[in-house]
């Protein structure tokens, strides 16, 4: 007969062991289920919440919808953090209960009756049995030995850092060649900002009313002062209003609008930038590298789109505080999109963005009061230079890292004409003062050096110089056109047009075209004497720079994009829809 206390102990231990075992199984199952569910997945990947947010963008005043979002948000947070708490507390409890289970199970086992060992009274173990036991002992020891050697060998093997990835070969990333850039018109005033195309067909005259010389004309939905750019058969243009910044692609052959993409980013609700009517919200010309189009607008929203119109990235580099509105066009060098943002001495800057991702690669502050001129990228003695103008400095940078190469002091006024480059010299306009040529192969502050030449003849205030290497054309706002020798600065001839001009001259082969603000185009020979070839009217205002092409001329006017050609059908053709 067992004592009562022993029975109570045994039964009590058994009860505790069973209860704690059941708890461990249940809690373990719960934790495993919890783990499989993903505690934060429901919170961070809630499709319902995304749907409600999208609905709210459609109905921003819907207070009930806002309440639903808040309620769901709270519920998701509570669920996730409650589950996290359960997991944490459950695991702690499991450790305690596991200890209890082991202790009670041990007690139960200890109090179990043991059967008597008959060998205790029997004969001694035979010799064979001892031999077998000895073999077993050796086998166990050998097994442990092998395991120990393996463990030590494994642990002595150092964890090696992964070898750094091989540097990307330059050949792997292909940038357009100079020949490709020259064949197309990838930026404001062409590849190098000279406004010149060697092989081109600028028509001498056309007639919008009769359709003579008009290959096609297409309405541009939103206004903008930006000029077209062309890559193969794609013409790109920008337009904007207070609500939208839009990039357009037109078919260069037929004129139809292929796509239009409204840039989309959280900055769409940024306050509308203050701009002058003459500048507008889409003054900067986009740029392309043949793979993507990059555009910037007055609110400093800059974006990259692929040729199918899909937005690759978009970011805002502002807000900008520019008294006339941002006007500097974008420049590009290899994988760097170069953005000149001059708006005040404390805030002017030059930024390089990665063309693939939009991430900032470098940024330099600029000691510039403000400017509306566009930067150009040129090769000087086989090295790239990014040349910028602003009051009071002309500064050249290395486009790869933003390091400054040289600078020249002395620009004044409100600087809108962009620089041009020809024959190793940078041509810069100093409105109201002079036009000067600066040798581009110097370094450091060259302000005390003499300019290669300087002239006060026909200094533009808005339009930029155009140069084919033989002749430099300067056009003032009130219509004085001067043709200079770019090597010496000597004036070859000048002619006065009774009109106002903002757009820059464009040179195509042996012809030059200028277009007045009222939309009157003048075409003359690219020669050492002035020889007028024709005058035509667009019937719309025009501030954009013409784009000469191999077979025709593209021109953006107030409402339409025109394709003009020398030989023309009789009637105006509507673009195919």
């Amino acid at each position, binding site marked *: 007969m067992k004592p009562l206390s022993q029975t109570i102990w045994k039964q009590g231990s058994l009860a505790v062991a069973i209860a704690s075992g059941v708890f461990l199984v249940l809690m373990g199952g719960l934790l495993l289920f919890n*783990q499989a569910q*993903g*505690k*934060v*997945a429901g*919170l*961070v*990947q*809630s499709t319902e919440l995304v749907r*409600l*947010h999208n609905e*709210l*963008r459609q109905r*921003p005043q819907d207070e009930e*919808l*806002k309440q639903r*979002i*808040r309620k769901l*948000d*709270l519920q*998701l*947070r509570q669920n*996730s953090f409650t589950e*996290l708490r359960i*997991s*944490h507390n459950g695991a702690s409890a499991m450790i305690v209960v596991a200890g209890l289970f082991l202790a009670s199970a041990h007690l139960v086992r200890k109090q179990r009756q043991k059967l008597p060992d008959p060998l205790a009274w029997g004969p001694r173990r035979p010799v064979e049995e*001892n031999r077998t*036991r*000895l073999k077993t*002992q050796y086998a*166990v*020891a050998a097994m*442990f*030995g092998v*395991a*120990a050697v393996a*463990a*030590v060998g*494994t*642990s*002595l*093997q*150092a*964890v090696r*850092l*992964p070898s750094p990835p091989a540097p990307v070969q330059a050949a792997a990333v292909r940038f357009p060649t100079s020949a490709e850039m020259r064949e197309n018109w990838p930026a404001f005033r062409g590849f190098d900002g000279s406004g010149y195309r060697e092989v081109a067909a600028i028509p001498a005259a056309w007639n919008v009313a009769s359709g003579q010389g008009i290959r096609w004309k297409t309405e541009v939905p939103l206004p903008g002062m930006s000029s077209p750019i062309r890559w193969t058969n794609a013409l790109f243009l920008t337009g904007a209003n207070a609500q939208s910044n839009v990039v357009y692609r037109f078919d260069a052959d037929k004129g139809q609008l292929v796509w239009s993409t409204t840039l989309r*980013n*959280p*900055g769409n*609700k*940024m306050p509308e930038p203050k701009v002058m009517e003459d500048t507008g919200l889409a003054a900067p010309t986009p740029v392309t590298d043949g793979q993507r189009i990059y555009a910037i607008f007055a609110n400093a929203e800059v974006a990259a789109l692929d040729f199918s119109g899909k937005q690759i*990235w*978009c*970011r*805002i580099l502002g807000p900008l505080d520019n008294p006339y509105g941002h006007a500097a066009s974008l420049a590009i060098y290899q994988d760097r999109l170069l953005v000149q943002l001059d708006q005040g001495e404390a805030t002017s800057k030059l930024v390089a963005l990665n063309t693939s991702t*939009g*991430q*900032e*690669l*470098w940024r330099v502050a600029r000691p510039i009061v403000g400017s509306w001129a566009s930067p150009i990228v040129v090769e000087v003695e086989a090295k790239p230079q990014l040349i910028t103008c602003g009051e009071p400095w002309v500064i050249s940078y290395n486009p790869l890292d933003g390091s400054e190469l040289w600078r020249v002091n002395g620009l004044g006024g409100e600087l809108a004409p962009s620089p041009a480059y020809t024959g190793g010299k940078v041509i810069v306009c100093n409105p109201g003062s002079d036009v000067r040529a600066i040798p581009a192969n110097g370094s450091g502050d060259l302000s005390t050096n003499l300019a290669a030449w300087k002239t006060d003849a026909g200094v533009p205030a808005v339009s930029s110089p155009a140069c084919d290497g033989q002749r430099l054309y300067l056009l003032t706002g009130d219509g004085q056109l001067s043709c200079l020798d770019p090597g010496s600065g000597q004036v070859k001839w000048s002619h006065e047009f009774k009109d106002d001009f903002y757009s820059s001259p464009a040179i195509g082969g042996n012809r030059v075209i200028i277009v007045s603000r009222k939309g009157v185009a003048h075409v003359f020979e690219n020669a050492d004497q002035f020889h007028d070839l024709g005058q035509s009217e667009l019937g719309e205002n025009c501030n954009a720079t013409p784009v000469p092409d191999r077979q025709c001329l593209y021109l953006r006017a107030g409402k339409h994009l025109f394709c003009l050609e020398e030989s023309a059908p009789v009637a105006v053709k509507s673009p195919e829809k």
Partner: protein
Amino acid sequence: MNRRNFLSGSLRGSLMLALGGVLGAITGRAKARNTVWQIDPFQCTQCGRCATECVLELSAVKCVHSFDMCGYCQLCTGYFEPDPNKLNTAAENQLCPTGALVRSFIEDPYYEYTINEPLCVGCAKCVKGCTMFGNGSLHLQIRHDRCVNCNECSIARACPADAIHRVPADRPYQFKSRERKS
């Protein structure tokens, strides 16, 4: 050999082997601790898997903020939903699903953004907004006060950008800064 000898011999041998194993393990761990896992913020594509793939219940990955890069923007694209309804702290306007990004007014129009770390789950939503449209001052890092330094890190295995590497333990973090932007 009697039973007593057998037991004492086995026990002695086992203890020796166990001691060797422990010493080996300690040596191995000491070597393993020379490196730790870390995220290269410039390779990170903000896919969000750090929040859900870590073996820890609450991920060891947290958002960190490089204040020297921050623009202290009123419209912080890491804080607000795209196209926010209003620039306030209501749930419908916040990007962070746990409210871990805290917005504090400094002076008009500047705001400071700090991270309430116990709430941060490393989902990278704020990082994505800040990187795509801002200065990229918000970024993810593996916090070594939480990371258990698994031999094979489960988020490194799941990372689509291969942005998680072992780095020397004496330089365990790869923070962004104004000087280090790429």
